[in-house]
Each structure stands twice: as structure tokens, then as C-alpha cells.
């Protein structure tokens, strides 16, 4: 039987090639592409392994003649381990430097000069199932119940809550939006005072007289009080409505300045006396 020769024009072949490439790039799932590449590697595994061994043998040939191949392999392994350790140590050093800089910035803030802080990492972040974050410092580091906890996400810090429970090496933070959190606060100017009360739905509430003008975005400060030597921003006003129970008052809703769920480190104000909390 005679085989019939298929004549295809150059343009058609080119279009087919481009279509094939585009199909592989944008239509075929990456898993399928990886399988194809793995199939190629498994079909040619022997020549590939052979080629790899040749390359390694050539690499090995540059070693000093004073050591044998086993010693050389051990040295290479040690070198790899050491490089890994050095890389980890470098990362730790950078982390410590970063924390130190943040703390130094905080202590340079006016009013904080004589205050002692304890930096702590967050072990379990706040989430839907566990609302109270846990930090890695406890009574051994001077942390006590009721102390204020600040975030360092902005340069001078912002109040995120208070320590609600503590043991030797860890502590729980009651975030300002958690139910049961009560902090003396002021809205806008420091003259408009009230109690910032956590609502448990990612917001806190403060009730103030309606004669004061409050607008959305106004800062809310945790006032100077036992446990906090200077007023510190805690949140911003998200809404301001008439209080349903008492029309003479305004119901001001507040959200924290920083995203508490994404925090990595916090600072506990340890030197000041403990404030009252429910």
C-alpha cells in the first residue's frame, strides 16, 4: 500500500504550532504539564542519571588530593548544614534587630521614657474560634493581669487590649473589641470622655453626650490611667448614631487602629500599676 504524503502549507503549520503552544500555556492545567514533564524525565531517567553522575564526578575532581571521596562528601554535607544554620541565624538576627528598633522608637516617644515594656510574640492569633490572642510572655517576664498591650504596627504604638489571664510563660490578651473589655477613653479631643466597651463583634462602643460633635474617622484614645502613663490611640470612629436607650447620648462605634488578627508581635506595658478590668 502506498503511503499518501500530506502537504501542509507553512502558514498552516505555523498556526498549528502557535495554537499548540498557547493551548499548553493557557488551557492545559499545570498538573497535566507537570505530568508530561515527569513522563519525559522517567523515560530518560537512565541517561539523565548518567549525565548527572558525570557532572558530579567532574565536580568532585576539583577537590584536594589530600582527602578521600568519603571525607569530601562529609565536608560537603557539613558545609551545607553550616550554610543552613548561618542563614537561620541571620534571619533571627534581623528579627531581633527589627524588634529592637521598634521598641527603641516607642521608648523615644514623649511620655514613655520611664516606662518598661516587654516585647512578646503572638502564639495564637485572634480568630473566629479563639477570640483572645495568646502571647509568649508570662509572669516570669513581669507580665500581670490587667496590663495594657500595645501593637507596634504604627510607630508610636496603639492600644489593642489588656492582659486577661497569665501564667508563667504565656498570657491571654483581651482585645478592646472583646466582650468584657472596659477602658477609659476619649473621642476626638481628649475632653470627650467615656468608657470604651468591647462588643464582641470586632467593634467597641463608647457612649457620649450628643452635645459633642463626633465624626467618622475621629481617633479614640485610651486615656492616661493606672497602667498607662500617656494617652494612646486605640481606635477610630466607624459610626455615630443616637443611642436607642437614651436619646440624649450618642452611640459611637469604634474599630481598632490595627488589624489585630494579623499582628506578629506586641508590647506589654509592664512598669505601670495595673488598671481595673471586669
Amino acid at each position, binding site marked *: 500500500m502506498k503511503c499518501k504524503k500530506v502537504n501542509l502549507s507553512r502558514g498552516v503549520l505555523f498556526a498549528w504550532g502557535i495554537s499548540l503552544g498557547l493551548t499548553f500555556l*493557557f488551557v492545559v492545567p499545570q498538573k497535566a504539564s507537570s505530568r508530561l514533564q515527569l513522563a*519525559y524525565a522517567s523515560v530518560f531517567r537512565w541517561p539523565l542519571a548518567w549525565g548527572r553522575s558525570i557532572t558530579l564526578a567532574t565536580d568532585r575532581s576539583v577537590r584536594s588530593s589530600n582527602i578521600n571521596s568519603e571525607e569530601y562528601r562529609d565536608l560537603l554535607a557539613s558545609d551545607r548544614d553550616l550554610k543552613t544554620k548561618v542563614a537561620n541565624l541571620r534571619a533571627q538576627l534581623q528579627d531581633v534587630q527589627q524588634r529592637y528598633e521598634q521598641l527603641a522608637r516607642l521608648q523615644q516617644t514623649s511620655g514613655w521614657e520611664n516606662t518598661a515594656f516587654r516585647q512578646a510574640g503572638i502564639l495564637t492569633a485572634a480568630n473566629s474560634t479563639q477570640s483572645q490572642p495568646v502571647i509568649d510572655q508570662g509572669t516570669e517576664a513581669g507580665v500581670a493581669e490587667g496590663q495594657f498591650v500595645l501593637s507596634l504596627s504604627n510607630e508610636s504604638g496603639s492600644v489593642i487590649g489588656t492582659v486577661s489571664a497569665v501564667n508563667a510563660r504565656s498570657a491571654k490578651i483581651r482585645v478592646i473589641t472583646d466582650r468584657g473589655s472596659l477602658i477609659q477613653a476619649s473621642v476626638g479631643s481628649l475632653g470627650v470622655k467615656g468608657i470604651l466597651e468591647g462588643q464582641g463583634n470586632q467593634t467597641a462602643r463608647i457612649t457620649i453626650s450628643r452635645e459633642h460633635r463626633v465624626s467618622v474617622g475621629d481617633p479614640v484614645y485610651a486615656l492616661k490611667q493606672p497602667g498607662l502613663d500617656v494617652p494612646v490611640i486605640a481606635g477610630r470612629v466607624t459610626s455615630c448614631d443616637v443611642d436607642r436607650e437614651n436619646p440624649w447620648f450618642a452611640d459611637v462605634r469604634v474599630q481598632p487602629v490595627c488589624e489585630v488578627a494579623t499582628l506578629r508581635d506586641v508590647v506589654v506595658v509592664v512598669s505601670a500599676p495595673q488598671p481595673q478590668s471586669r
Partner: protein
Amino acid sequence: MHWIRFAVLVLLASVLQAGPMGVLGVGHSNVKPDLLLILLVFFASRCNSTDTVITSFAIGFVADLAAPIHDLMGPRTLSFGLFGTLLFDLQSVISIRRPIYQGAAIFAMGFLTAAVSCLLAAARTGGSEMNLYMHLLWQPLYSGILGPLFALPAAWWMHMNRRRRRPYPRSSRSRR
């Protein structure tokens, strides 16, 4: 065109590229000449129009299998096919028969195919880190320097030592 010989040569080149070519690796990034790129220029400069299109896409496909960019299939198929065809067309303007021009062509093709491949891969993956100097400069340069040497055994294997006289096949009308 000896297609079986072509298939053997391209597969051999891909296997050599993945393995023993490491012997020729230089520098901290272990830059190696790209054998498939050299073959792309070799076939584009010696085949007829239709064969060049087929060989370019086929070499690109094998390059995607053997040395993929970000584990993607397609970027090198497209770039090799596109620029292999373009190189063939350019030969009506410039000749790349001399080794030094072949080297320059390999460098230029290496740069262009790598740039387009990286762009396509970035378009698919949304952009990620790549050693651009290595892909765009050092590897094409190294391939351009060593390429003309690799072209000699390839020409012997493919029985393509003779000079290509006619870039396009004769039309049916002129044959009559």
C-alpha cells in the same frame, strides 16, 4: 529532511542539556550553553521553509519538556517556533553561514526567545523571581560562543554539510 535523525539528535541534545552539559557550567549561576537553542539556529539556517517551522516548534516543545520555565509547558514552544520561523525569513536579508554570524544569531535568538518565554511565563504565573541576567545575557552569550562548534557534529549527523541554495521550495508554476 531525515526526521528520525532529527528526533534522535533533539532528544540527545535535551538529555545532554539536563546532564553532562553541567561539566561546561561556569560562574556562580552555573551558566551552560543551550544545546536546543543552538539546534534551533542550526535547523533554521539549513532547512527549507516548512521544515524550519516544524523543527522550531518541535525543538521548543522538547525544551519545554526538558528545561521548563516555572514548570510550564508552552512558553518555549511559542518563542522557539516564532523566532525560528523569523530567523529563516531573515536569511533572505542577512546570511548566517559564517561561524561568527552564526554565533551572533544564536546570541540574538537566545536573548529574544528567553525574553518572550519569561514574559509568557510571567503572564501565566503572575510574575515571579527569575535570574534574568542568566537567561537573557549569559546563557545566550555562552551558547553563541560555543554554538558554531556544536553545529559541526550536528551537520555531520544530519547530513547537512552542503550549502542550502534555495530558501523557499520552487513553486509549481516555475517547475513547469
